[in-house]
C-alpha cells in the first residue's frame, strides 16, 4: 500500500519535522515565527542556497563534490556587479558575461575531474581558495553597489514579490498542471496496459502538494510591507528556485542525462561497460553547476544590492549540508531534488528560529553543525533499516 502511493517516506518525515519545528518556534517566539513576514523572509533567504543545492545533489549522486561553489559564486557575483557599476554595462550583458566566466571555471574544474581523473574534492578545494582570491582581485576588494531597479527585484526585497493576482494565477496554473499530468499519466498507463492505482488514491496524492501550494500562496499574499499599497506575493528568488528545482527534477526523471548521472553514481564500472559517455556526462554536470551558480550569484547580489568579495563565504557548507540533510548519500547513487529543498528549508528555519529566540551566534553554529551530524546518522540508520547500501 505504502509503495503504491509513490510517496517517499523520508521526504514525508522531513516535511513533518519542518512542521514540528515551525510550531515549536512559533510557540517559543511568542507567535512570530509563523507570521507571514517571517515566512516570507525565510523563503527568500533560503533561495540562494536552495538553487545551488539542487545541482549539488546531482554532483554528489555522481560521486563528485564541489567545495568551490561559494567562492565561484562570490567571484561571479562581484564580477557582474563590477561590470554593471564600474563598467556601466546593462544587467543582462553583465550577467551573460558572468555566466561565460562561470562556465569557463566549471569546465576547467570539470575537465580536471572528468578527463584527467583528479578527484573533484582536491580540484574544488583548490578552487575554494583560488576563486575567493579572484573575487578579491576583480574590484580590488572594493564593494560594488547594484542600483538597477529591475535587477534588484530578482533578489526579492521591496519590489521583489510578484503580487497577489500573479501569485494566485500561477498557483492555479501549477495545480492544473499537476492534475493534467496525472490524467496524462493514467491515460498513458492504460494505453500500455499497465496496472492503474485507484483514482481516489492518485487524486489524493496529487491533492497533497496542491494544498501546500495554496497555503504557501496565501501566506505570501498575506505579507504587506508597511506603507506599501499591495501585499508581496511569491518572492521572485523563490520563484526562480522553484523553476530550477522543477527543471532539474525533469532532467533526473525524464532524460538520459539524469539517468546516466544516477547510473554513474550507483556503479561507475557498470556505467562505463554499458557504454555511457561518462566524461561527457560529467562535463555537462559541471556546466550545469556553473549555470546555476551564476543564477545564485545574480539573486544574491540583487538581494544584497551589492557585490562584495566576501559574497558566498562558507556557502559550500550550507549547500552540501542541505543536500545531505535532504537524503543525498555522500557515497553516491542516491538523492533527490525535493529532498535538497526540504533540507535547505530545515536549516534556514532552524537558523532563523534561533535568531528570533536570541540564541548567540556561537551556539547557533554549534547546534546547526550537530544537526547536520544527526541528519547523517539518521541517513545511515535509515539505509540500514531499509536494506540500502
Amino acid at each position, binding site marked *: 500500500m505504502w509503495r503504491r502511493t509513490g510517496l517517499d517516506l523520508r521526504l514525508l518525515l522531513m516535511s513533518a519535522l519542518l512542521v514540528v519545528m515551525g510550531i515549536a518556534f512559533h510557540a517559543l517566539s511568542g507567535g512570530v515565527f509563523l507570521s507571514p513576514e517571517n515566512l516570507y523572509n525565510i523563503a527568500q533567504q533560503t533561495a540562494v542556497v536552495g538553487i545551488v543545492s539542487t545541482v549539488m545533489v546531482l554532483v554528489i549522486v555522481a560521486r563528485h563534490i564541489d567545495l568551490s561553489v561559494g567562492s565561484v559564486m562570490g567571484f561571479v557575483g562581484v564580477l557582474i556587479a563590477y561590470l554593471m557599476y564600474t563598467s556601466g554595462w546593462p544587467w543582462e550583458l553583465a550577467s551573460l558575461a558572468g555566466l561565460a566566466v562561470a562556465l569557463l571555471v566549471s569546465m576547467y574544474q570539470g575537465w580536471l575531474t572528468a578527463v584527467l581523473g583528479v578527484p573533484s574534492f582536491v580540484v574544488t578545494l583548490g578552487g575554494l581558495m583560488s576563486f575567493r582570491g579572484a573575487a578579491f582581485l576583480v574590484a580590488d576588494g572594493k564593494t560594488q553597489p547594484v542600483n538597477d531597479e529591475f535587477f534588484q527585484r530578482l533578489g526579492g526585497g521591496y519590489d521583489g514579490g510578484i503580487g497577489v493576482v500573479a501569485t494566485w494565477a500561477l498557483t492555479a496554473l501549477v495545480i492544473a498542471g499537476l492534475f493534467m499530468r496525472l490524467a496524462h499519466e493514467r491515460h498513458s498507463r492504460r494505453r*500500455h496496459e499497465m496496472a492503474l492505482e485507484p483514482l481516489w488514491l492518485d487524486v489524493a496524492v496529487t491533492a497533497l502538494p496542491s494544498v501546500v501550494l495554496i497555503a504557501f500562496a496565501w501566506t505570501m499574499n498575506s505579507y504587506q510591507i508597511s506603507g506599501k499599497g499591495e501585499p508581496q506575493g511569491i518572492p521572485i528568488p523563490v520563484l526562480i528556485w522553484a523553476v530550477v528545482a522543477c527543471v532539474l527534477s525533469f532532467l533526473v526523471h525524464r532524460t538520459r542525462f539524469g*539517468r546516466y548521472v544516477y547510473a554513474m553514481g550507483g556503479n561507475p564500472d*557498470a556505467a*562505463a*561497460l554499458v557504454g555511457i559517455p561518462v566524461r561527457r556526462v560529467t562535463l555537462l554536470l559541471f556546466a550545469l553547476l556553473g549555470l546555476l551558480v551564476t543564477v545564485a550569484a545574480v539573486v544574491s547580489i540583487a538581494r544584497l544590492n551589492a557585490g562584495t568579495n566576501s559574497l558566498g563565504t562558507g556557502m559550500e557548507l550550507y549547500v552540501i549540508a542541505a543536500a545531505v540533510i535532504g537524503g543525498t548519500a555522500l557515497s553516491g*547513487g542516491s538523492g533527490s531534488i525535493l529532498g535538497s529543498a526540504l533540507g535547505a528549508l530545515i536549516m534556514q528555519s532552524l537558523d532563523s528560529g534561533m535568531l528570533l529566540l536570541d540564541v548567540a551566534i556561537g551556539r547557533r553554529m554549534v547546534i546547526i553543525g550537530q544537526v547536520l551530524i544527526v541528519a547523517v546518522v539518521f541517513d545511515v540508520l535509515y539505509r540500514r533499516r531499509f*536494506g540500502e*547500501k
Partner: protein
Amino acid sequence: MASKPDSAAPLVELHDIRKAFGGVHAVDGVSVNLYAGEVVALLGHNGAGKSTLMKMLAGAYPVDSGDMVIAGDLVHIRTPADAQHLGIETIYQTLALADNLDAVANLFLGREKLTPWRTLDDHFMEGQARKVFQRLNKNFTNIRVPVRALSGGQRQVVAISRALYFNARILIMDEPTAALGPEEAAMVGRLIRQLKADGVGIFLITHDMPDVFALSDRLVVMKNGKLVGTYLTADVTEEEVLGMIIAGRRPERKAQAERFAS
C-alpha cells in the same frame, strides 16, 4: 533473433591480438574464431588473459595490435557502444548493473528508448522489459525496485535480458552460472542452447567443467596470455583439458580445430 547460421564465413575472427598492461603481456598474439550457432568455451586460470581478450571484443579495452573481423568486415572496436552496434553483447561476471536503478532502467541502460521529445519513454520500456523478463522467469514481477533488492537469479535475468532484448548475434558470457543455484543454472543452460539454435555465436568463459562439456562445441585454452590450443570439445577428455589449463600441455595425437564441422 540473429540470422540463420552462415556456414561460409566465421562470425568473429580475432587475429594475433595483443594487449599489455604496463610491462605485462595480458594477451600475447592470440587468434580465435567463432561461427554462428556455435558455443566456444574459453578456459584458463585466473590471469590467463581470457577475460581481457573478451573485454577487447566488447569494447571495454582498446587492442594494442591485431585485427578483429566481424562477419567478414575488418572493424575497429573502441568503445562498448561500438561493440553493441556490431551486435556484440556481454554478460559480465559482476553483471555490470547499477544497483540503485530498477530492473527496467538497467535493461535499457545506455540505450534508452526516447519519445519524439527526447525524453525517456518509460512506459514503453517497462512494457518491453516485462515481456523479456517473463521469458526467462515467470515469477519476476518486482521490476521497479532497485536491483540491489533482487535475488542473485533475478539480477542474472536482468543481465541476460540486456543481451536478449537487443538481439545479440555475438554473445560473451563471463561465468554466467557462477553465482546461481542449480535451477537457475539449468535455466541459463537451456537459454544458451536456445540462442545457439537461433544462430547466435557464443563465447563462454567458465571454470565449470560440466558446463564446458554440456554446452560448448569447441574449447580454447589460454595460459599466461598465450593460446595453448583450440579443440573440438568432443575430441578431448576432461583430463586433457585440465592438462592444458594447468601445465599448458597439448594433448598428443589430437588435431586442433579452427571450426566446428557439424
